[in-house]
């Protein structure tokens, strides 16, 4: 069981002069409760990976399955939910409730059931259905719109949730809201997050993949990256500042001990290394 990709590759415009190998031999397993963090710079293939994992693109090479069935657009429908970057651009309906109910309705739910699912999803993302349900989606602020768009995907009750840069462009309040949604979703689903910064979800991810040039340059746990932030170099990624500080200290020969993402703990590490503690 789970969303499983094995040795997946993908080429855009295969067979033409413009063909572009975007993915090569990517293996990823996401089960319920997992938080898989896929890190990569622009052009590393992470957006392609999302689309393949959502069944929107066929797997060129390798295989992909969801809960035992071969992954296709049909089998992914309603089972794998994908929240795109700047997801709020998909909002279109007259009311927020209608927009969030769009997904369930497409899956064949009766309008009343779809609206119930919409209410639940709105509550889950922290938008009170009674306050927001009747409003026009275009009247929402950036952060609210982003959450409404996420609700639109959650309303389909996917077993696997894929999020592409979910916190891009949000302020600290918005980012915190998204983090909470992700944690809540882990209870009933598996979550894959794709990002170009490690800061946000590294501490909560039980699996981390670093993509570079379409292939997996590193695969391990969040803890692996924390202990050795240089693993991110291969992806052209910058480690979180707190880790970078500890790493710089270690490079100078100071014994910092086990790295920590928590600034307080990191401070103690540095203090001890410098002999002040």
């Amino acid at each position: 069981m789970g969303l499983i990709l094995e040795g997946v590759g993908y080429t855009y415009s295969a067979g033409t002069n413009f063909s572009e190998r975007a993915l090569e031999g990517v293996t990823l397993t996401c089960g319920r409760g997992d938080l898989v963090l896929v890190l990569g710079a622009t052009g590393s293939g992470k957006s392609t990976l999302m689309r393949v994992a959502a069944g929107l693109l066929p797997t060129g090479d390798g295989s992909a399955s969801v809960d035992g069935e071969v992954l296709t657009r049909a089998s992914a429908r309603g089972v794998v939910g994908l929240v795109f970057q700047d997801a709020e651009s998909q909002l279109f309906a007259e009311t927020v409730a209608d927009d969030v109910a769009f997904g369930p309705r497409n899956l064949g739910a009766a309008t009343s059931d779809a609206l119930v699912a919409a209410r639940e999803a709105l509550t889950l993302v922290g938008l009170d259905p009674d306050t927001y349900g009747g409003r026009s989606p275009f009247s929402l602020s950036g952060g609210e719109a982003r959450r409404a768009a996420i609700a639109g995907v959650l309303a389909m009750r996917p077993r696997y949730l894929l999020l592409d840069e979910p916190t891009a462009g949000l302020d600290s309040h918005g980012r915190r809201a998204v983090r909470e949604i992700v944690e809540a979703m882990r209870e009933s689903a598996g979550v894959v997050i794709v990002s170009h910064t490690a800061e946000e979800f590294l501490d909560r991810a039980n699996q981390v993949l670093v993509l570079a040039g379409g292939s997996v340059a590193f695969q391990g746990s969040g803890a692996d990256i924390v202990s050795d932030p240089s693993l991110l170099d291969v992806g052209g990624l910058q480690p979180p500042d707190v880790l970078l500080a500890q790493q710089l200290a270690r490079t100078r020969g100071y014994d910092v001990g086990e790295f920590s993402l928590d600034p307080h703990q990191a401070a103690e590490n540095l203090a001890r290394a410098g002999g002040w503690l």
Partner: protein
Amino acid sequence: MLRFNDVSFSYRPSGREVRAVRGVSLCVAPGELVGVLGSNGSGKSTLVRLANGMLLPEVGSVEVDGLCTSDEARIHSLRQSIGVVFQHPDDQIVATTVEDDVAFGPENLGLDRAHLRARVDESLAAVGLVGLERREPHLLSGGQKQRLVIAGAVAMKPAYLVLDEPTSMLDPQGRADVLAVIAQLRASGRGILHVTHDLAEVVEADRVVVLRGGEVAFSGAPQELFVRPDLLESCGLEVPPVVVLVARLRALGVPVASGISDPAALIEALWD
């Protein structure tokens, strides 16, 4: 001097009144970098639109080197002195090639071809886009697009530049490139107003102004802000992690200056 004098402005969508900015005073001198911080809804975007007369304040006034934004006859001169860069680069790029877009502003001023060429070349050099003159905008990366927009503003040779969250839509590389350009522009003597919700971006500023609910909640050196986490919290802003780390170090008795937010600078401060 770019001056906001006790400025207030409200939006009135269908009869309601939404106070966006209230009693804000602020100035930017040439060569100064002033950061404006605030969460969404704090009024910072409204401030940007008030800066060059896109919006006129209901109370108070906005002046650019002595010219008032409400002076309709002189608004063109005013807008030559103050360039504004908004958040979404695609909403500001007008022409079909990079150089044509940079030339757009100077073309509006009726400059002759030799001067147009000179301005375009200088501006592209200032933002690091030399060599991309004939490129079509949709083929540029996010960071390149934003630098193109900055070049377009710089081509007017403004004394002041206002940037509204220029990096919020960019990836780390794009953000680094844009911040580098901003630093360079400040070094070349322009007065810069950098509006953002990320404190880390304005740690090098001469001054930082924090807006909350349309009012000024703080005005002073960025370092002073680092030691006020409660204030930041109430304004919807986050303290940069390294600043938290430094605070803890100091609490542990480690001799290090407060207000360092860059990891490399911190390590140097500790062990150099």
